């Protein structure tokens, strides 16, 4: 019984954690999966957003999730600017995406320093009524508890991911976004300005950092360098899901979330990364383009 109880709770925790991972990765899934910009600074931008959330929460008592929504336009704008620069210096001259990686790594450093200078290096947390509390109860003799903190992250992430997924699948803009890295010239023949599409899509990708940052500071304490810890996770999730597939990203995030939670519960958390990344390797060995990747071996 206790095993079953642990199992069910681990499963729930895993799904919730997966939602959190999805929120961290979804923007990257757009920037990297669809637009080919290897934005390794993505987690660091999320940390920047988390600090903004902190400021709004600590100084004005704004609910962190609301704060995340408020700063999202800011990050959308930041994405707009960054892509414009990136385009100017890399894509226009058709430089390899790899150079972009070095560029974004530079941005990562710069962002971190800006964060250190403006916020210091100390850990920060936010507070809200739902943080540190959980709900649950007994069902058929099994007691389940669900922390609101992770639940809220999960719900927001699910809305975000599904919303983006629908938007990309169904809208004209979404189709253009999925097409843009395949043939920019052909896209312009469809009456679409590919650069504008990329700029907006990148801005959306970075815009998700706003809300993801809010979720991050709800879930974990932050400091300027904490983003680096998640670089491996977010890239693994995007690739495991398959480049260019938003639903793949969501599924991959769930898998890693559940794997981590299960391993933590039953085998000791220390092995969680090994298991998660072995899953990634295993999947790639059989499906070289990830779970939902579409025959695209970029």
């Amino acid at each position, binding site marked *: 019984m206790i095993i079953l109880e642990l199992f069910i709770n681990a499963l729930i925790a895993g799904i919730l954690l997966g939602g959190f991972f999805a929120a961290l990765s979804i923007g990257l899934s757009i920037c990297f999966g669809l637009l080919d910009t290897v934005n390794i600074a993505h987690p660091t931008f999320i940390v920047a957003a988390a600090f903004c959330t902190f400021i709004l929460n600590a100084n004005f008592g704004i609910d962190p999730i609301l704060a995340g929504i408020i700063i999202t336009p800011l990050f959308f704008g930041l994405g707009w600017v960054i892509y414009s620069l990136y385009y100017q210096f890399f894509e226009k001259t058709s430089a390899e995406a790899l150079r972009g990686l070095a560029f974004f790594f530079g941005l990562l450093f710069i962002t971190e320093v800006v964060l250190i200078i403006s916020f*210091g290096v100390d850990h920060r947390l936010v507070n809200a009524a739902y943080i*540190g509390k959980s709900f649950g109860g007994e069902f058929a003799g099994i007691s389940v508890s669900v922390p609101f903190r992770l639940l809220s992250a999960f719900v927001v992430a699910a809305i975000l991911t599904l919303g983006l997924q629908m938007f990309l699948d169904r809208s004209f803009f979404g189709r253009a976004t999925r097409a843009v890295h395949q043939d920019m010239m052909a896209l312009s023949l469809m009456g679409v300005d590919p650069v504008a599409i990329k700029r907006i899509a990148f801005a959306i990708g970075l815009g998700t950092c706003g809300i993801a940052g809010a979720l991050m500071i709800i879930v974990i304490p932050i*400091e300027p360098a904490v983003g680096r810890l998640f670089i491996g996770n977010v890239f693994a999730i995007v690739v495991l899901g398959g480049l260019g597939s938003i639903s793949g990203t969501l599924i991959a995030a769930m898998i890693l979330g559940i794997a981590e939670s299960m391993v933590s519960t039953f085998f000791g*958390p220390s092995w969680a990364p090994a298991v998660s990344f072995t899953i990634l390797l295993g999947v790639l060995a059989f499906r070289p383009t990830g779970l939902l990747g579409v025959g695209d071996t970029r």
Partner: protein
Amino acid sequence: PVAQAQSKDPIKIGFSMALTGALAGGGKQSLVAMQIWAEDINEQGGILGRSVELVFYDDQTNPKNVPGIYSKLLDVDKVDFVVSGYGTNLIAPAMPVVIDRDIVFMGLFGMNNNGKWNYEKYFQILPAGPSPAVGFSSNWFEAVKTFKPKTIALVAADAEFARNLKEGAVENAKAMGLEIVYNENYPPRTADFTPIVRAVNAKKPDIFYIASYPNGSAGLVRAIAEVGTDAMAVGGGMVGLQYAGLMSGLGPNLNGFLNYDFYVPEPTMNIYPGSKELIDRYQKKVKDEGLKTDALGYYLVPWAYAYVDILGKAVNAVGKIDHDAIAEYIHKTKFTTVVGDVEFGDNGEWTQSRTIAVQYQGIKNNELDQFSQPGTRKIMFPADIQTGEVKPFNSLR
């Protein structure tokens, strides 16, 4: 009137410090304390009548950068003394460089760095006693004895300091005859700690020892708030709960945790003469100058002040820059500093542990000010400075 330090050739003290990266929180705090010390000593006439100048570089919390920095300090900057940066793995890479020059080396919060080297000119300020890993948690285990525990669960972060603490805790637990029902480590990138807490709860331990880094400390505090636990004592080696940011962030969720500390604003802490004034100055300085560092500074400020202070005192006592003589002097002297009386044993560690066990009590909200008043972190052990009674974890929630 105090003699002003002469402006001729300052005495240079060099060190690396984590100003960025994972340990920067402690590093920055330490640096401010050391700068306060430099002001103080210069006001009092400096060392050997020469003013003191600090020369330091950011090691980015990356051990890789440390050997180069110390070599630069010694060979290019020609500093007169070096002291260590903050943390075990940033002290370790400096050891061979220093040993090669055969000079005095003061360490700031290193865990058993001298274990293998047995270097006679190394002195370390972390008050964990001659066998640091064990000494670090011995007082905590003393404090939990009131619960007459039989079983213990242990969790540690997969990182140098925490793993060492846990190993020491295991020894203490064994010495107490406790049965270890859970003993695991968690990786630094862990985001959700509820599965760990549930797994621990499933083993129904009487006490729950945690050796964690700030991320994990906060994560575990919240996970325990959410999932609950029946353990009577929880905590022990949680780094970060002493930080202003985390304390105010976690607020009432901290109630009941029984953790280590070095200095808390309790009245009995007056056994550390001058520490309260020092901390007040630190807090004022941070506020006045708008420094982006820990607002309270309880964790490291007195210690970072003390380790350079001891060096200064020793040099002045010896009267010349003679490392052999200075080391010998430090070995045989009992220093009175802002962290009380300090004596170093043969391996350069404190002769006895003065890590204190504190329990978080009566925290009502997230206001920072309450933590600078007595009462929120009561001392449970050592007995001579005890300010409260240990209560079972859940009775304080």
